[in-house]
């Protein structure tokens, strides 16, 4: 049984009087512990698919199941709790909270758990250690480079050991060297820590790091 099962998903947006169809009858399986790259031109629906998987948006029809839980049927509060437990999300523009240190940013998802302060501290240090920023705990985002910021964002995404890690163009704003560091890190997370990763990217080189590459064009998936 696949970790992610997307069945007959249809998604459309209403813009003024115009209805924009993003997906019609989309079906996809993503296996546990896999690293999937999702490629496609702008407007092909990559980010929309990621949002649907994270429960940030709902399909017009069809079902999305992640680790046995039907995401599209959950109430907003159940969905928030489910996201906190099962989803790690990394944005293209990092989206760290500028008023919090790297440590505090990574600790955010753990504030939603019942972990003690000591346990949270331990986990945050481990996560920042995994991304190679164990010595930047008290740095604010403005004191970090773009690559470092993105690595803090990845630490934030994995700190609660989520079932599924989703990344939306994680190297889109990084220089070549920083992008390579992030991609290597993602590869390690998949191969060494067996994290299931779905990454949206434009970059063919980035996609090469994944174990599976899917192409999305006009709402239709192709291997």
């Amino acid at each position: 049984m696949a970790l992610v099962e997307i069945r007959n998903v249809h998604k459309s947006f209403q813009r003024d009087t115009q209805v924009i169809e993003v997906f019609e009858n989309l079906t996809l399986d993503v296996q546990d512990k896999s690293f999937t790259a999702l490629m496609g031109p702008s407007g092909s629906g990559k980010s929309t698919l990621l949002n649907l998987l994270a429960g940030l948006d709902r399909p017009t029809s069809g079902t999305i199941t992640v680790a046995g839980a039907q995401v599209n049927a959950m109430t907003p509060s159940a969905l928030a709790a489910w996201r906190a437990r099962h989803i790690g999300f990394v944005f293209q523009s990092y989206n760290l909270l500028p008023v919090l240190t790297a440590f505090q940013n990574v600790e955010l998802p753990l504030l939603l758990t019942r972990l003690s302060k000591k346990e949270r501290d331990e986990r945050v240090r481990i996560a920042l250690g995994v991304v190679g920023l164990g010595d930047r705990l008290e740095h604010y985002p403005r004191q970090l480079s773009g690559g470092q910021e993105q690595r803090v964002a990845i630490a934030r995404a994995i700190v609660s050991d989520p079932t599924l890690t989703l990344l939306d163009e994680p190297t889109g704003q990084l220089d070549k060297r920083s992008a390579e560091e992030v991609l290597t890190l993602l590869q390690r997370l998949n191969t060494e820590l067996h994290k299931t990763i779905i990454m949206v990217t434009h970059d063919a080189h980035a996609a090469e790091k994944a174990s599976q590459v899917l192409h999305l064009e006009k709402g239709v998936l192709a291997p």
Partner: protein
Amino acid sequence: MNLLPLVLANLRRHRLRTLLTVLGVALATFLFASLRSVVTTLNAGSEVASASRMVVTHATALVFPLPMSYRERLKTVPGVEAVTWANWFGGQYGDGKLFFAQFAIDPESYLAMYPEISVPADQRAAFLAERSAALVGKGLMEKAGWHLGQNVTIRGTIFPGDWTFTIRAVYTPTVRALDDRSFMFQYAYLDERTEHRVTPGWYVLQLRDAGLAPTVAQTIDETFRNSSAPTKTGTEKAFNQGFVTMWGNVQFLMNSIGMAVVFAILMVTANAMMMTARERTGEVAVLKTIGFTDRTLFGLVMAEAGLVTLTGAVLGLGGAKLLYAGTAFNGFGMLPGFDVTAGTLAIGFGVALLLAVASGLVPALRAARLSIVQALRHVE
């Protein structure tokens, strides 16, 4: 879930804006406490009045005196146990900067009727024994730096000339709302110096029973209705309240100004909160993506608004309480016993709480209802 560090971090984001908002709320609550304390102090002044004391004044206005002959006639009214009288002197001490009320009183009957004016026995005897003696409140003694036995000269404005008194006694009020900055002297001295041309400004009656007040008032006013000096008889409380209403509708005025100030600050605080929330639209979306619920984010914004307004309220209300208590403020003698009461503090905190809810509600609801996808589209 301990989100206090996040709340504090958000407030530190724009330190100056947060500081100005807190100071705005502090100023508003300080003014609210000050204005309301004027009202409560004035009301406390009338509350201190004995229920079994009545005051008889001229029906037209307090400034018109009453004949001395009324004294004996008032004594005969059924229900009246004792009668005393007094006069407003209205003099000026020194350059006039130190203002205090001066009364000519009939010492024995007046002090007997006002047990709340506490005078040591030896000083009381000295005051009664000397015609030009003065009985001065403890607060005024301290303020003016006077001492027992000192001669004090007051320039009469209603009764011309320089009037020299010797301080023979100092009184201490046994109730807080009674003015401790008054200056009293013997009516006989005023009578003598004016060559018996003065008559009492008002009479005070001690009733056998407070329940007799309406009957006594009716009897007295009926008795003098067709005389050259018709009377207006009322309870001491009503008499004291009359002084308050001489200022106009103080309560309405003070409350109106207080509410206007609070409303103005509400606008400022709400604007600051809205601005802060708008700036953080993307961050709210990120927090939702992480798993923060709508309710948690609603609480987060409300907590920020609450912390700002309640910090301001603590500064404003606490500042008012400490400042007025520390300086023994009495409104230049017009507001004896001026105090920011526990009731005012409680209402002040209630107002601050309402301010927090009113200023935080809209941004908090916006944060809670924010669509993650739409908000992220702005950020990404």
